[in-house]
Each structure stands twice: as C-alpha cells, then as structure tokens.
C-alpha cells in the first residue's frame, strides 16, 4: 500500500470528488426544504428550487412594474459599474505609485509609510466620513472601494517591483537606459501581468466593500437588492442573488486569468 500522500486520484475520480460536496449540499438542501414545506407550505426559510427559479425569472425577464426596467440586469450593471470604477482607479493608482516607490528611493522614503498606514486603517470605519463628505451618491461607494483596495494593491505591486532581480536593473543601465526608460520599457511591462494578479487577489475585498456600501445607501445594485428583500425574508431572491454574485466573481477571475495567459505568454516562467 502506497503512502496516502502518494495516492493520486485519476482524472474522472478527481472530477467526481470535486463535485461530490456540491452534490451533497444540494441533496441536504432539497430534502430539508421539502420537509419544511410539507409541514408549512408558506415556509420562507428554505424555499424550493422551483420557487427560486420562479422569483428569479420575474426579476430577470419581466420589466418591473414600478420602474419599467429589468431588475436583475439593472442591479448587475450598476454594481459592476461601481466595482469596475473602484478597482480600475485603484489599479491605476497602484501601478503608478507602486512602481514609483519600488524603484525611486526618494519616493519610497516619502510615500511608503503613508501607504502602509492607510493599508492598516479599517476601511469600513471610514464609510460614515465618506457619506458625509461625498453624500450618498455613487462617489462615496467608489471611493470606499478605492480606499479599501488601492493600498493593498499598491503594496502588492511594490513587492513585485522589488522582486525584479537587481541584476536586470543593473544590466539595462549598462545598456544606456535612463530612469524613465527603465520604468516604461523594463518595469511596467513586467509588472502588468502581476497587476492583473493583484486585481484578482483584491477583487474579493472589493466585492465586500461594494455590497456593504450598497446595503447602507443605494437605490439599485446587487447588494441593495438582497438587503432590501431581507425585510420580507425573501430567501427565494437572496439565495439566487448570492449564487449570481459568486458566479460573476468567478467569471471575472476566469477572464482575467485567461487574459494574463494570452497576453503575457512569458509570465511566470524563467
């Protein structure tokens, strides 16, 4: 008998084992849901799959009577817009500042304590300040994401810049590169795939801030919706929404990963 650490499942077993926990959760959910519904057909806590699909198709495919819009589409678009703006601006900031503090010692001295300080501030504690300063509109939600994500991303980029072998930086100086040329032709192209990775890493955090901000003050958005219907214990909406948000997060991550592989074939290889 081989040691446990040397026993590797075959491809089909691997797939089956991966799906097994999901399957078990589904079975447990459906059976408990059925049991509760048999006792009380109006039970809201564990709605049947049919009920979920039914509620969701109303939100997804029928125009809302109140606003005349497709609710799910509208929620998704406004949330994604906030997320994209927050993460996009953070990424741009992280790229510019992370590279600068990574390669120019005077900028390191000036900015790195500040970035370090900001990355330790519990961002949610700043939300009231943002609402006071920027009002309850779009700006404060986007700024919350930026404050939460940009310092982490910047530190990550700074670390990645530091990881570029010093031999390489010295070598290009002997090829006549100026500071500007080192930044634009050597550092930035090598950091871009790492920036994409940093975005993938911080997207989870960005979603947290997005949904929190939407829960407190918004008129549409995925986070707004689930907190709104919570009042009616509408688990038939909340559960599919959570799955939908997870699916979106997965899709974004997947697209960014493919993007990295296609655009930077040399990345991660030495």
């Amino acid at each position, binding site marked *: 008998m081989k040691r446990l650490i040397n026993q590797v499942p075959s491809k089909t077993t691997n797939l089956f084992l991966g799906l097994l926990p999901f399957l078990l959760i589904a079975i447990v959910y459906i059976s408990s849901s059925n049991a509760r519904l048999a006792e009380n057909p109006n039970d809201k806590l564990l709605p049947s799959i049919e009920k979920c699909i039914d509620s969701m198709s109303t939100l997804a495919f029928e125009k809302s009577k109140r606003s005349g819009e497709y609710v799910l589409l509208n929620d998704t678009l406004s949330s994604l817009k906030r997320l994209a703006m927050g993460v996009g601006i953070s990424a741009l900031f992280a790229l510019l500042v992370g590279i600068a503090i990574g390669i120019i010692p005077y900028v390191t001295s000036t900015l790195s304590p500040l970035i370090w300080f900001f990355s330790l501030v519990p961002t949610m504690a700043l939300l009231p300040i943002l609402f006071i300063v920027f009002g309850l509109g779009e700006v404060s939600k986007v700024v919350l994401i930026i404050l939460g994500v940009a310092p982490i991303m910047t530190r990550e980029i700074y670390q990645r810049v530091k990881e570029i*072998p010093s*031999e*390489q930086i*010295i*070598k*290009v*100086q*002997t*090829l*006549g*590169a*100026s500071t*500007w*040329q080192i930044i*634009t*032709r*050597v550092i930035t*192209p*090598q950091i871009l795939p790492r920036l994409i990775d940093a975005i993938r890493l911080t997207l989870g955090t960005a979603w947290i801030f997005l949904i929190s901000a939407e829960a407190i003050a918004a008129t549409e958005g995925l986070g707004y919706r689930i907190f709104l219907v919570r009042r009616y214990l509408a688990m038939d909406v909340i559960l599919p929404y959570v799955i939908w948000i997870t699916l979106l997060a997965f899709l974004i991550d997947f697209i960014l990963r493919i993007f990295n592989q296609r655009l*930077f*074939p*040399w*990345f991660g*290889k*030495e």
Partner: protein
Amino acid sequence: MNLVEAKNIWKIYGDSIILENLNFTMEDGEFCTLVGPSGCGKTTFLRMLLGIEQPTKGKLYFEGKDYPKEPSDERGIVFQRYSTLSHLNVIDNVIIGLEFETSKFFGKLFGNEKKKAHEKAEEILKAVGLQDAREKYPHELSGGMKQRLSIAQSLVKKPKLLLLDEPFGALDPGISLDMHELLLDIHSKLNFGVVMVTHDISEAFKLGTRVLVFDKVKVDEKYPNRYGSTIVNDIDSSSKRGTRTSL
C-alpha cells in the same frame, strides 16, 4: 592611457575589511581574469568596476578620469543569471540597447530606424550563434543560450570594458567550452577590455591574457575579517592563451 587604474583601494564594511591596498592597471584589449577563494573580494572589485560600489579609501580611474558612480553603457556586464529581459524575445532583447540610445522618450524604434537596428542586431546574433532563436523568449532558451544573449545585449553597445561575473558558473562543462570559443573569438575581433570573475582556474588561464589572484596577505585566526584581500599574483598568461591547461 590606462583603461582602468586603481590606486591603494580599500573596501571596508563596518569592521570587516574586504579589500586592502589594492593596486591595478589595465589597458584596452586586455583580458583579465580574477581568481581566488570565495569571499576574497573579487566580486566586490568587479562591482566597483561596474560602478555600483565605491571604494572606501583610495582612487579609482576610468580612462584617466574619476570613476563613474553608476553603471553606464561604456561598461557592459554579464551576470551568472537574470541578465536578460524575460518579457522580450531575443531580437528585442538585443535592439533595446539601441532603442534606449536613439529614442529617449518612448525607448522604442519604429519604421526605418527599427529596420536598421534589426540589421545590426541580426549581425550580432549571428556572431554569438543565436540567429535561429530570434523570436524566442528567454524562458525558452537553454542556460548557454541565455548567456549568449546577454553577451549580445552588451556587444550591441560596443562597450570599452566588458565585465563578466562568473558567466559560465551555472553551465554544463561542454557548454562552457563552446562559450570559451565564442568569447575568445569575439575578443580577438573587437579590441575591448574584459574583466572576468571565475572560480575555475583552468578557465582563467585559458581565456585571460592576465590572471589576477586575489587572496589575503595576512590571516587572523580569531577575526577573519581583520585583514582584507589584495592582488597577490599577477600572471601573464597571453602565451598559453586558448589552450586548455590542466591543473
């Protein structure tokens, strides 16, 4: 005029003395190999010649003038590893040196200028034997090919002094022999100075016109860093050059 001149150089870190009282001169076209036990300061000396370290005491001159305090394109370097740019293919790795020079803002050449740079780079790639790998990325090259590329990158800048920091230390013996041929060939055609750190003594005698031995003159058993190293032997090996000596 001497290409490099060092007068009474000392290098001290805290209370460790690395180099002491080192004197050295070299001229254009000389191929100096530095040998000695590990930790004897030969790499420190090479880093001074590169311009990334400065002597604590003493005077260092490049072409009769004060030594530059940072790397420049007059002095090329080939490290043991990591000297190539992983995000560029072979030909772009070579022309980037020309691009830095001509295109100050974009660092990139276009159109006719790019074509000219390409022709120049092709010639050098042929000289180092990489003409068939022009579209490959460094991660697709073997260790020896990476070092050829690194040499090509420096050659395109026509340096006055080429510095080699154990360039073949990580290569298989057979590949090293090919690299020796390449280096001797290039050095005989282009008359630049070379300083090479190596721990392989037969390599030092085979390639160098001069072999410089670094070691400590005095040793303190209790405080090994009390005395620094210096050049204890300066051997003219130009007559034996190209032949493999067995030691």
